[in-house]
């Protein structure tokens, strides 16, 4: 194949004009020989995307295999959660018995409520603290802020097991009995930084002059914060809150280290039942948890768009008036 081509136009990002492929080598050569025609922009429309010769077919195969390998196990869990039988090998027909079994089990129901409660409490406290921390870090440039910045970033890279051990040791050393409360405290600690990072990104992009204008017009600090800054940050805050909800709801390691006897959050419960053997109920719990976190993340992704558009509209409307 011709590997060395000279004099091609660069930087044309538009997709190549469709070229008949079926003819193979000869067809491609013919297509290359055809004279370049001006594209819709009037410029000569040349192909800048690499042709098949550096697009090994095996890459496409790798991606296909990867996607099957990634999604097959999850699909199997979902499929077998609706299995009428106990088997993990044969699908014996559709049934929702494992779901009814889950909701009929008072212990598991208690775990579900515990998980939801922990996630909601973590979400509320971590979002408030993390947002305040983000504002402080961006606006307070004093000697302590670089140190605070490092302290804020380290929890993001600490392995979960280290987080779990340090939290467990803290609670045992101060003599706190392990319970849902200790789980919430630990979850908040390792969620604050996520909120701070997400909100800070949006905060640094804000236009300071609007705030200064508000202050010049006689608004107090808190009024400026409430009327100018918060409405702009709202989409980021809501997104961060929902991500924290999903992370907390899904968390296993940290909960495992800080949980008391009862009620245990759902992932801890799953873990202990897996160790006693594979049961179809776990498939149902897994599917339910998947639905909860996918919903939270989907809302987190969709809400900033909805809120952002409205928030921007309000601000523009006020400016215009």
């Amino acid at each position, binding site marked *: 194949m011709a590997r060395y*081509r000279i004099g*091609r136009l660069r930087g044309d990002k538009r*997709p190549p004009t469709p070229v008949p492929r079926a003819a193979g080598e000869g067809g491609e050569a013919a297509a290359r020989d055809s004279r370049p025609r001006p594209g819709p922009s009037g410029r000569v429309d040349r192909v*800048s995307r*690499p042709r098949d010769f550096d*697009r090994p077919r095996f*890459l*496409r195969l*790798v*991606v296909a295999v*990867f996607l099957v*390998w*990634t*999604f097959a*196990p*999850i699909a*199997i869990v979902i499929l077998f959660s609706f299995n009428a039988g106990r088997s*993990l*090998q*044969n699908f014996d027909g559709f049934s929702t018995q494992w779901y009814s079994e889950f909701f009929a089990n008072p212990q598991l129901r208690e775990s579900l409520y515990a998980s939801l409660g922990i996630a909601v409490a973590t979400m509320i406290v971590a979002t408030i603290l993390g947002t*305040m*921390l983000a*504002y*402080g870090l961006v*606006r*307070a440039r*004093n000697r302590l*802020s670089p140190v605070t910045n490092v*302290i*804020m970033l380290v*929890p993001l*890279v600490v*392995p979960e*097991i*280290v987080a779990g*051990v*340090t939290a*467990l*040791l*803290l609670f045992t050393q101060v003599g706190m009995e392990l319970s849902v409360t200790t789980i919430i405290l*630990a979850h*908040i*600690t390792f969620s*604050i930084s996520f909120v701070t990072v997400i909100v800070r990104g949006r905060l640094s992009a804000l236009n300071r002059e609007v705030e200064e204008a508000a202050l010049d017009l006689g608004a107090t*600090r808190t009024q400026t914060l409430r009327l100018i800054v918060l409405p702009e940050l709202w989409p980021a805050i809501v997104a961060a809150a929902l991500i924290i909800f*999903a992370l907390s709801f*899904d968390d*296993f*390691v940290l909960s495992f280290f800080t949980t008391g006897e009862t009620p245990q959050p759902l*992932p801890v419960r*799953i873990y202990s039942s*897996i*160790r006693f053997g594979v049961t179809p109920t*776990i498939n149902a719990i*897994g599917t339910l*948890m*998947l639905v909860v*976190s*996918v919903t939270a*993340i989907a809302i987190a992704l969709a809400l900033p768009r909805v809120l952002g558009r409205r928030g921007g509209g309000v601000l523009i409307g006020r400016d215009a008036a």
Partner: protein
Amino acid sequence: MSERRFAGLVLLPGAAWLVLLFVVPLGITLAISFGVTDELGNALYAWNPENYERILDPLFAPILLRSVGYAAATVLLCMLIGYPIAYYIARFGGRYKYLLVALVVLPFLVNYLIRIYAWTAILSDEGLVNGILADAGMTDDAVRFLNTPWAVVGGLVYGYLAFMILPIYAALDRMDPTTIEAGKDLYGTRWQTFRHVTWPATFQGVLAGSVLVFLPTVGDFVSAQLLGGPDTYMVGNLIQQQFFDANNYPFGAALTTVLMAFLLIFMAFYLRSAGRAAREARV
């Protein structure tokens, strides 16, 4: 009130929380790692460096080495699998680019525990694969997939591959595709172009991905617990045992401290390398 004062006050609650519930516990862990246990198994503060000497015991040292080995193998496999995938998405994704990125991220919304559990359901003796093999008449006895290093490393790769794909994808997406064409125009073979153009341009992405995969895998205990057995235990399992079975908090704290110190050194090297690369890119 000046803006700085005000912002300093706003910062206070979050910072105080992190100091009290993150920094102080790190100190407590360090202190207990030198402690002893009484007859009841309660941890007492003391000066007892033996906890650290014990880590080198032939009973435990192999587990630490194994953890690093498994994590390194995971990083390498993620690199080998992740690079082609990232390359395909960044260069040939076309209008499906963002869909493909979403498909890479999507499984991470599913609980890690559940995803690892799915593999136990697939690979166990009564699992799907053995069922298919038996139905096809290819095997008489169930093939043992679980309790092997392959299963544990496989679980880790499955769990953390996206952390490798995303940074490499970002690096490939940033790089100027015309430099690849230039390499080819200058008579570079496909391999030479990759070696001298694409790889250097995306090396920082590969490095970032390696760190992102290495950090959580070296401390992971779920994969080894569910897909492996005592022969494949990692340091995470050992730590977990100290707190839940052996009830030896000081030794567990010492193991945790060593793990944390090891990862901090690892991070420091990475940050230095990344910082140097960023400076060179600016010049």
